[in-house]
């Protein structure tokens, strides 16, 4: 595998993506944009996809949207399948029996935050030479918008509805990168499809780091169907999630956390919540407590990241 260099403009990317049109993902699908950017960032790779929207929407037999080797096995095992492929390709390529390729494990937040977390931890601990990319749309969308460990406080999903007594999810979002970085792997980062250049360059950086061990990127990929906003707003929503400090953009390299997109004057979270039907109930005065808790968590999380950044090489 050759080193990949950063890009600065769109024309630095290949003209054609190996993720082809004709797939059955929704209009305005954040994960579809994510996948297209991944294949543009890394033109030749094997993608190991966990069960989820991207998997079911792109490979309905006899069709496939993939012009790069692609594998799906189960829901919670994309990391160990990727580990097996990476180990095999390393062994076989050394004997001239296969071509070595970057191995990308791709999974949604359900596969990554929840059901596959133990298996991911195993792959990270072993320092397996894989790239793990999580496309986070904040809930189980493929099964119909159920809450996951990635759903933030107050969100109304089909398993955490905005009920008369309990107004949406009562727990905060899991600190995925905190867990990942605690394995002290070479590279971990967050990205948003809105900041496409940052995201592409992080993926390319991750590929380079995967020569040494695992690299992990947590990508914000909104779902218009689940979040219930107009499909044309996907990139705007991705932007608002960053600019409200709900989804901070940072990376951890050589143990040092660095905030890559500093939000000095955050947009009020209400701006983000009001354009989505699954969070609009949080603006109802009767749910002001939840809104206050959410705001406090967002600020606490941002402060925590700034403190970690200042603390030096703590990962």
């Amino acid at each position, binding site marked *: 595998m050759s080193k990949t260099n950063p890009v600065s403009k769109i024309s630095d990317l290949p003209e054609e993506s*190996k993720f082809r049109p004709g797939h059955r993902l929704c209009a305005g699908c954040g994960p579809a944009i994510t996948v297209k950017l991944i294949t543009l960032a890394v033109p*030749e790779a*094997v993608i*190991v996809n966990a069960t989820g929207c991207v*998997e*079911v929407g792109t*490979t*309905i*037999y*006899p069709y*496939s949207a*993939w*012009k*790069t*080797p*692609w*594998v*799906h*096995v*189960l829901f*919670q*095992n994309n*990391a*160990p*399948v*990727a*580990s*097996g*492929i*990476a*180990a*095999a*390709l*390393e*062994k*076989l390529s050394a004997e001239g*029996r*296969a*071509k070595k*390729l970057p191995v990308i494990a791709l999974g949604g937040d359900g596969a990554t935050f929840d059901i596959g977390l*133990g*298996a991911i*931890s*195993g792959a990270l*601990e*072993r320092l*397996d030479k894989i790239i793990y990319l999580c496309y986070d749309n904040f809930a189980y969308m493929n099964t119909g918008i159920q809450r996951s460990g990635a759903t933030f406080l107050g969100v109304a999903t089909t398993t955490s509805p905005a009920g008369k007594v309990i107004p949406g999810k009562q727990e905060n979002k899991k600190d995925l990168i905190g867990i990942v970085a605690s394995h002290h792997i070479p590279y971990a980062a967050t990205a948003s499809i809105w900041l496409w250049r940052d995201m592409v360059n992080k993926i390319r950086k991750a590929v380079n780091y995967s020569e040494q061990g695992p690299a992990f990127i947590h990508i914000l990929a909104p779902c218009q169907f689940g979040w219930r906003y107009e499909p044309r707003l996907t990139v705007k929503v991705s932007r608002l999630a960053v600019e409200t400090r709900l989804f901070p953009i940072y990376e951890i390299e050589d143990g040092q956390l660095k905030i890559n997109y500093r939000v000095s004057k955050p947009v009020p979270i209400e701006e983000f919540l009001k354009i989505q039907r699954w969070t609009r109930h949080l603006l109802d005065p009767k749910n002001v407590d939840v809104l206050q808790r959410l705001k406090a968590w967002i600020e606490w999380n941002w402060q925590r990241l700034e403190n970690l950044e200042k603390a030096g090489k703590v990962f």
Partner: protein
Amino acid sequence: MMTEALARQHRIALTGNDAVAYAVKQANVDVISAYPITPQTFVVETLSRYVNDGELNAKFINVESEHSALSAVIGASLAGARAFTATASQGLAYMWEALYAASGLRLPIVMALAARALSAPINIHNDHSDFFGMRDAGWIMFNGEEAQETYDLTIMAFKIAEDPRVLLPVVVSYDGFIVSHAITNFYALNDDVVKEFLGVRTTGPRIDPDNPRTFGVLALQDSYFEFKRQQYEAMENSRQVIKEVFQKYEEISGRSYAPLKEYMTGDAETCLVAMGSTVGTARHAVKTLREAGEKAGVVGILQYRPWPVKEAEQLFSRFKRIIVMEKVMSPGARAGPVYEDIAATIYPKHSEVKIIDFTYGLGGRDISTQGIIEIYKKGKELIDKGKTDRVYFHGVRGE
């Protein structure tokens, strides 16, 4: 054994687990992934040692669970590697959904199973609950009676799995502790002989950027059934391939294998059926029974899937009485799985043959020669009285 065949091998004393590890080393596997579980653990310990001592050039992936062990092996196999895993009991149960993925993806994976009871209550000793739990997972299933068979089957398993007419995973089971931990003498082929017999893996799926394929598609109402039917046909094809591999293996080793192992069945009227280490004890029991004038015989099941339909019909239709001994419980069923296979094979065509089913040895409860003689006598008597409409239990309180 012929001198020619002897020259191709060496005598060695190892436990069943180490015999498997030795076969896997000689098979030159590319990738191993496993998780420790009693009584299989020594397989992966020995293989780790082979890898770390440089005796085996393979990647060993030390995973955090059996689910991931089979998943890593699935990934490696998809990439074109010869891949191996080993497990037992809860580990196999934890792999369950991946078992179906491995066979559905048509991957020539080989797995060793040191057969052990399933929880609850937790028990580390031998029975065949784990083995039969994967009955319909689409794997070719063998059962080794002792170290020699287990070693030979492990080597042959790679040849069978990788045959382009088959491309299915193979499990080689052997009784936990009784076989896995007992040191016995057996003949092992020389390294170069195994190398020539197996070569490197060249068949089956392969991840290749120059020919990018999509593996593990979503197949809906219009195509899923055809995928499964092809899998069924691959299992059917394996019958002939297994026969050929047994034949080829006999040519190099001098050891002859058949799906069903017969002992004193020629003129037998009453036949015991068993699987695993019990088969040897049953032979001893039959010898004793013969001395007492009984026309007794034993059939040991070596190849469970594909079920040897033709051989079984030919063989079992000859007897007056069949007494099936099963180290597995199938609550709510008419009988245990082996009984059901035999009955489905010979009925209604050979309705004069009477079958009875005994569950024995669960959780490692010992079975002795005397115990088998008791089963034989009781089984014969119950059949003659026509009392075959339930499963009987041997060696349990309250029966």
